[in-house]
Structures are given as C-alpha cells and as structure tokens.
C-alpha cells in the first residue's frame, strides 16, 4: 500500500467563509493518511472504498487538460460489476412510449449512426462532499471525483428517433449491467426528462479519450449527459426505455435529491415535489491545481497560480482572484475552451517579492451569469459543493 501525507485545503472550519465581511478564514490542517491503490488497468488512485469500488483522482492527475483514462475516478453504488464481452453485448431500446423495440450490437451502434466526439466534465454529484460543514454522510470525496475527457459515441436522440418517440413520452429510463449482492437492493436505474434525452449533447458513448471505454468507467457503452452530474451517466448500458410516466425507482425518488427551489440549474419537473427535486446540472466551479493549501513559495522566484474552471455548459466567462479576502478581484488569464462542457484553464502570476502569507481566493463566473458562492448551501446529501476555494500560501 502506498500512502502519502496530504494537506486538505483548510480544516473544515477554516474552509468556511465567515458571515462577517472581510473576515475570511484561512488555515491548513493535516488530514489522515489516505491510501493510494490501483485497480486493474488503473494507476494508483485515492481509495475511498474497496467494494463497491470508489476511487478518487489525486490532484496531481488533474493538472492536464484531458484527464487520463487510467487515472479517471471510479464510482459504483452496487458491488456486482460485470466483465462484459463487447462482441455479445446488446443494447435494448424500447418502452411504452417507443413505437418499436430495437436490439443493437456495439458494431451496429458504431456503423448505423453518426459519430460525434467532444470534451466534457464528468463530475460526481457528491464531489467535495468530504469538505462539507456540517459534514454529510456518504463517500467522503475531496476534489477528485471528477475529470475532463473526450467522449466519443453517437447521439442518444438518433437512436431514439430510430425507435420512434411517441407524443406521450415523459422520461427515458436507463439501466446498466451492474447489480447488487442482494435481491432486495434497488438496481441502479436512472431517468432523464425526454427533452434532455433528445439533447444533441446526450450520447451513448463507447470511447473515452480515443480509446474504448475502460472497464471501470462503463465498458462497452455508457451514457454521457453533458452538463449534468455523473449520476445520470449510466455505465455498462443494457437498456433504454422511453416511458409515459415518471420512473419511481429508489435512485430517482429517494437518492440524488436536493431541496426544491434552492439551487440554480435545470428543473426536472416530472420528478419534483414540494420538498425535494433531483440534482441536475453541474454548478459553476473552479479548482486550483498548481498549489495546495499551505504550500510554500520561494521568495523572488516567479510563480503562477493555475487551475480549471467549468460549469454545466454555458461556458466560463471569467475567473478572478482576490488577495485581500474578497474586497477586490482581478481577472485571471483564461485558456481556450475546447467545448463549453469542458473545463477551461486559468493562470495568474503570483508576486513573490515580499516574504509573508499570501491568501488567495478564486472564483469563476459562467456565461449564464452564475458565480461561485462565498458560502455553502447545506443539504443532507452533501451535493453541489462549489464554494469559492481559498488557499493560504507562504512566501519565504
């Protein structure tokens, strides 16, 4: 087992920005040692749980524009994960609101439909859950339950149009090959509103960064719902059903829900009630990858802060940094965006002329006007952590 010391960005208390204007809290805390372990075919990742396997990408592997397949995070709810033979695998498409039923092989999917490829963020709804205060139960992810990859496949809508979508269609329901140890455990089945299923950026993907999908990321085919959190990106797809009613499985009706009317983002009307609604779009966010909280900079040596910013698909318009606890902000230099669903790089030179503390806050704003908040919005499951990141560096 490989282990390493890791400095979490502030104690949980230190991460919280105070309600009092101008009194932002900074501070570093030493977290427990976390094991770096490799699943077959993967590099060593931060092991959260062995079974079902939940492995997080270390910050060091999030520094490249495209997150490598072998360091991409792994997330499962159920422990029975099939090794699927792509030659005998079939995808069934039908449902009560489909005009016909089709069963397609991987070769047919590749051959009979237009191929598309674009970069998009795949981010777990609970990314950064481990940084929530008050704390939230569940997989205690820090920053790496996400990545940016080039997804290759076909548009779901082209396949749905092949089976024919009836006028009464409300949701499209997706099942994958993974299953539970016990018959009483709800299978991992997700649904999308029919308009999102028909969106041009919702794919049946079979390639990731130009390679066949890795086993742990959903081989041979998975859903890509660009702009929406990864809970909808069903792996090891086996069936797609167009239905006239709201799907009522556990993973829609009970799990992956947030308080109604509290967060921005697309509404999922057929699944909403007065108290809770499904999580949908990724909120605007950013991540510093060049430095960790508590890092020391050599006096007089040129240094640059760098990282990524992303949102649910409107695209990033600005990334700003503050050196005075949020009183003033200065625009960072933005890199090119390969797709509005991908992350966008930012860079900011750091002044290392004077010794002493350097307190940095970073905030991103999307083209839709949404900006990272100063405070977290508590919610029972610890979703949508997109609070402004703060780092306390030291020039010495």
């Amino acid at each position: 087992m490989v282990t390493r010391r890791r400095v979490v960005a502030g104690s949980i208390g230190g991460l919280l920005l105070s309600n009092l204007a101008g009194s932002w809290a900074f501070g570093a805390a030493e977290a427990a040692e976390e094991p770096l372990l490799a699943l077959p075919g993967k590099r060593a990742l931060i092991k959260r749980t062995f079974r079902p396997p939940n492995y997080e990408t270390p910050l060091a592997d999030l520094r490249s524009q495209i997150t490598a397949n072998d360091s991409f995070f792994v997330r499962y709810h159920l422990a029975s994960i099939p090794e699927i033979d792509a030659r005998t695998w079939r995808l069934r498409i039908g449902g009560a609101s489909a005009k016909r039923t089709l069963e397609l092989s991987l070769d047919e999917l590749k051959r009979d439909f237009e191929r598309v490829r674009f970069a998009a963020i795949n981010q777990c709804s609970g990314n950064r859950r481990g940084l929530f205060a008050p704390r939230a139960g569940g997989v205690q992810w820090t920053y790496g339950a996400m990545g940016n990859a080039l997804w290759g496949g076909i548009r779901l809508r082209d396949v749905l149009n092949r089976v024919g979508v009836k006028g009464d269609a409300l949701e499209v329901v997706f099942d994958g090959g993974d299953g539970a140890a016990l018959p009483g455990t709800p299978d991992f089945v997700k649904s999308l509103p029919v308009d999102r299923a028909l969106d041009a950026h919702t794919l049946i993907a079979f390639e990731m960064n130009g390679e066949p999908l890795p086993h742990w990321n959903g081989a041979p085919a998975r859903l890509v719902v660009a702009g929406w959190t990864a809970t909808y990106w069903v792996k090891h797809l086996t069936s797609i059903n167009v239905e006239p009613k709201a799907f009522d499985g556990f993973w829609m009706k009970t799990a992956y829900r947030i308080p109604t009317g509290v967060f921005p983002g697309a509404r999922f009307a057929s699944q909403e009630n007065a108290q809770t609604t499904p999580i949908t779009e990724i909120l605007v966010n950013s991540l510093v990858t060049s430095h960790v909280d508590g890092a020391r900079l050599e006096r007089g040596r040129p240094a640059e802060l760098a990282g990524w910013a992303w949102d649910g698909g409107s695209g990033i318009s600005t990334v700003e940094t503050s050196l005075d606890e949020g009183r003033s902000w200065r625009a960072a230099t933005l890199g090119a965006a390969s797709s509005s669903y991908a992350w966008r790089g930012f860079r900011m030179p750091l002044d290392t002329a004077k010794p002493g503390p350097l307190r940095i806050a970073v905030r991103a704003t999307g083209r839709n006007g949404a900006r990272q908040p100063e405070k977290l919005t508590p919610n029972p499951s610890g979703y949508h952590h997109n609070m402004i990141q703060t780092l306390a560096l030291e020039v010495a």
Partner: protein
Amino acid sequence: MNTHVRYTAALAVLLLAGLAVAAGEESVQLQDAPDRDLVVARCSVCHSVDYVQMNAPVLDRAGWQKSVRKMIDQFGAPIGEADANRIVEYLATHY
C-alpha cells in the same frame, strides 16, 4: 482464535457463500470488540467495511441507527431487530 484469524474466518464464510470480496479488502480491520465479527459478517455481504471507517467522523449514534435502518428498509438487508441493535451498539461505541 486471535483477531486476525477470526477476521479472516469471517471473510472466508463470505467467500464460501459465493460473494466476491474485492482485492485488498481483507486489509480493512475494524476495532476488535464484542460483535465486531457480527458487523463484519452482516455488512460485508454487500460492501467492504471501510465504509464504516469512512463515515466514522460523520455519523453519531443516531446517524448509525439511521444508516443501519436504511440498509434494512431500503436496501433489503435481511437483518433482524436483535442483530440490528447489536450492530448499531458496536458502531456507535467504537466509531
């Protein structure tokens, strides 16, 4: 039996029951205390017990109670009232 032998025996029962245990999982050691083997035997049917360690800083007694009820009521774990109480007691006391 010493601690490790008993723990290994508990996992061996799972393997005999035809359950796939993930590579490396046997390295997870819960606190040696009464009912540890019951917790390992019951919880490991569906998941590795590093879930217990991971959620230890998050869950208090009420949280463990809720978590165990969720496994029974929503995830279909076939655990009776008496065993559920012993599991909650172990978790609340040692994690």
